[in-house]
């Protein structure tokens, strides 16, 4: 099945003894000049790249307190060394969070600290050579920016911040990653990661309307670019056709329909995901985020709701107000933005939507906490709402629910293995190995509690799991969207045949 060894799922997740260089060969395709330039980066490695990289490092540490403090504060205590899913799955010591940071820290020390300038050997400081740059390119593309290490670090050092900085330094000297940079280019020219133009979106959504009406007998609408709608839904473009994502989109539409809400999607901002974050590029992230502001103004909406997507929800929840705010032109009674799970949860609380839970009785579910939702965002007004609200939505729609073991969920959740700009086929080995801890937890509840399906609220998680879980003996249809469960169980009050005024656009 694979030209690499798929990790064995043992009884417990063992912390492996390290094996040098097992993933040294892993690196994503490098971006060609045409994918670099639209993002404002040089097309290829610049001549004076060492000098430029050191200069960029200095620039970043003067602009990001996190970067400066994290480079200084690490004491090499070892607390993070067994926390990264990529280390657990690959045994490569450079996938231990501290060792990954050190690839950059040792260069920082050499050029920016007293000890590293005068006693480099003593503190492990090195010059920035081509070998070091190659290591950066390889191992900073083996971090999914999931922040699990930051939970366990006594100083809160977040390797994601270091990885983002490293990628930005590399981009600034002309060494970018094809997958992310090509995608960002598509957002700039077309509006979404998949490069679906408005026409294609219209066709797709019309298809979904027909399909949903056939299934339910209810004319559930999937509106696009409707001016004057109350709610703008921004969702990952994978929701438009990938499985099981699209079943989630149908779920959102049914919820809006049942709530009698006036809503729309936008072809200008037809993407929730913001890959600018993966590059650590504030400027590119901002440029992408501003499309959402522009769409909201253009369409004259009052609220913004985000579909199921993990890193997207981080940029939306934690950064959108900073990057593209203030949103004082929206209805102040609602947070900006809201997560679709918050939206659905509120309707459930108010008794405005009802479920026939037996529709999901053929499944026993568990829930994968997406890394960036879990450790970088919140839902609702209480800390931890990001764990409780999606579970409450699932439990409202399903009778059979079991959590995976403690230590693999909530703030301790394991990344799917494909986040942070790594969801590309040129990193398949990494993705399969990085999924090991999550697959292990899923196998545990499969065997002990008869779990049949795992729900997720992230486009990356869903794509990653449908692709890699077969390597571990699962089938791709065992991965479901949370709003797919909602979709299957929601009771549409105007069904069937009862064809009254449910939409007025």
């Amino acid at each position, binding site marked *: 099945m694979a030209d690499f060894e798929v990790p064995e799922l043992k009884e417990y997740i063992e*912390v492996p003894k*390290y094996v040098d260089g097992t993933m040294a060969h892993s690196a994503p395709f490098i971006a060609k000049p045409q994918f670099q330039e639209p993002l404002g980066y040089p097309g290829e490695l610049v001549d004076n790249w060492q000098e430029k990289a050191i200069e960029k490092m200095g620039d970043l540490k*003067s*602009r*990001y*307190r*996190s970067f*400066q*403090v*994290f480079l*200084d*504060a*690490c*004491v*090499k*205590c*070892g*607390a*993070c*060394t*067994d926390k990264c899913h990529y280390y657990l799955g690959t045994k490569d010591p450079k996938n*231990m969070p*501290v*060792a990954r940071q050190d690839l950059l820290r040792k260069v920082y020390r050499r050029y920016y600290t*007293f000890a590293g300038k005068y006693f480099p*050997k*003593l*503190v*492990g400081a090195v010059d920035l050579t081509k070998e070091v740059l190659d290591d950066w390119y390889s191992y900073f593309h083996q971090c999914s920016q999931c*922040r699990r290490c*930051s*939970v*366990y*670090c*006594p*100083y*809160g*050092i*977040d390797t994601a911040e270091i990885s983002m900085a490293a990628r930005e330094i590399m981009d600034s000297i002309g060494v970018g990653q094809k997958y992310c940079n090509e995608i960002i280019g598509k957002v700039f020219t077309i509006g979404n990661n998949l490069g679906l133009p408005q026409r294609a979106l219209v066709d797709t959504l019309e298809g979904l309307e027909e399909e949903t009406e056939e299934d339910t007998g209810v004319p559930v609408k999937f509106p696009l670019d409707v001016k004057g709608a109350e709610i703008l839904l921004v969702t990952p473009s994978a929701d438009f056709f990938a499985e099981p994502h699209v079943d989630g989109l149908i779920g959102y539409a049914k919820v809006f329909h049942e709530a009698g809400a006036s809503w729309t999607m936008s072809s200008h901002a037809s993407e929730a995901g913001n890959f600018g974050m993966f590059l650590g590029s*504030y400027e590119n992230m*901002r440029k992408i985020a*501003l499309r959402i502001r522009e769409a909201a103004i253009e369409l004259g909406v009052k609220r913004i709701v985000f579909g199921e997507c993990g890193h997207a929800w981080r940029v939306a929840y*934690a*950064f959108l*107000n*900073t990057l593209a705010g*203030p949103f004082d032109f929206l209805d102040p009674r609602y*947070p*900006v*933005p809201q997560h679709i799970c918050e939206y659905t949860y509120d309707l459930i609380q108010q008794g405005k939507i009802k479920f026939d839970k037996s529709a999901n009785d053929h499944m026993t579910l568990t829930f994968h906490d997406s890394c960036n939702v*879990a*450790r*970088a*965002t*919140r839902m609702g*007004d209480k*800390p*931890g709402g*990001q764990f409780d609200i999606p579970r409450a939505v699932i439990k409202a729609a399903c009778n059979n629910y079991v959590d995976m073991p403690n230590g693999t969920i909530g*703030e301790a959740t394991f990344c799917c293995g494909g986040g942070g700009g790594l969801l590309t086929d040129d990193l398949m080995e990494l993705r399969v190995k990085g999924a090991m801890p999550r697959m292990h937890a899923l196998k545990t509840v499969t065997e002990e509690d008869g779990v049949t399906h795992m729900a997720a609220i992230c486009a990356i998680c869903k794509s990653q799991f449908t692709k890699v879980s077969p390597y571990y003996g699962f089938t791709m249809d065992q991965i479901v969207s949370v709003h797919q469960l909602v979709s299957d169980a929601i009771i549409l009050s105007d069904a069937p045949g009862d064809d009254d005024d449910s939409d007025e656009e």
Partner: protein
Amino acid sequence: MSALSVTYAILFYLATAVLVAGLVYKIRQYAITPAPLKIATTPAPVTQTGVVIRMAREVVLFASLFKSNKWIWLFGWMFHVALLLIVLRHFRYFVDTSSVIWFWVPLIQPFGKYAAFAMLAGLGGLWARRILVDRVRYISSPSDHLMLALLVGIGASGAMMKFVSHTDIVMVKNFFTGLLSFNIQTLPNDTPLLIHLALVITLMFIFPVSKLLHAPGVFFCPTRNQIDNPREKRHLSPWAAKLETQGEK
């Protein structure tokens, strides 16, 4: 007054100057460098009081480390608490303990005295991990071992004076209270004491240029000190605000 006493006095002044200036420089750097984005590791407190509690739990109890690894927590916490007691105990060499505000200095003496063993045990545990656990060995540089050696040296030479070969602590106190008033007094010429003080001076010199910056650093860590309220309150750093006024691109 011997040349030795003068040399130690000068070194203490220099070390204090480097320590204070170095820390002021680094703390200022941390304080003025913007944190352009909200990056609190969640679940995070939603109020300022909550952040103070979170930070206190980190600094006093090492809460995240406890979650992470019980052995590192045990050794690390034991070492730090012992060190704190020992440092507080050493106030008796600098202050007039008959004054009412220093009433606690005599009270903690017995605890501070035996804390030496806890400090050495903690350091020993951390050092053993650095050597025995393959992952920790991999990430260790020579400086990480030397730092432990330095701290063990300070603890061992100090315990030596307390429990084996006493020094004249009245003279030591005169020396340090003298330093405080720029009046250099004679230091006892005892080998354990001179070693102890030389190592402490070394520690003071390297503090602001080493990983010991974790001490001020933890307070400035955005993942721990930010309030989780990005939707409620717009967070904008000065350089990011400039992007907005420079014209929309």
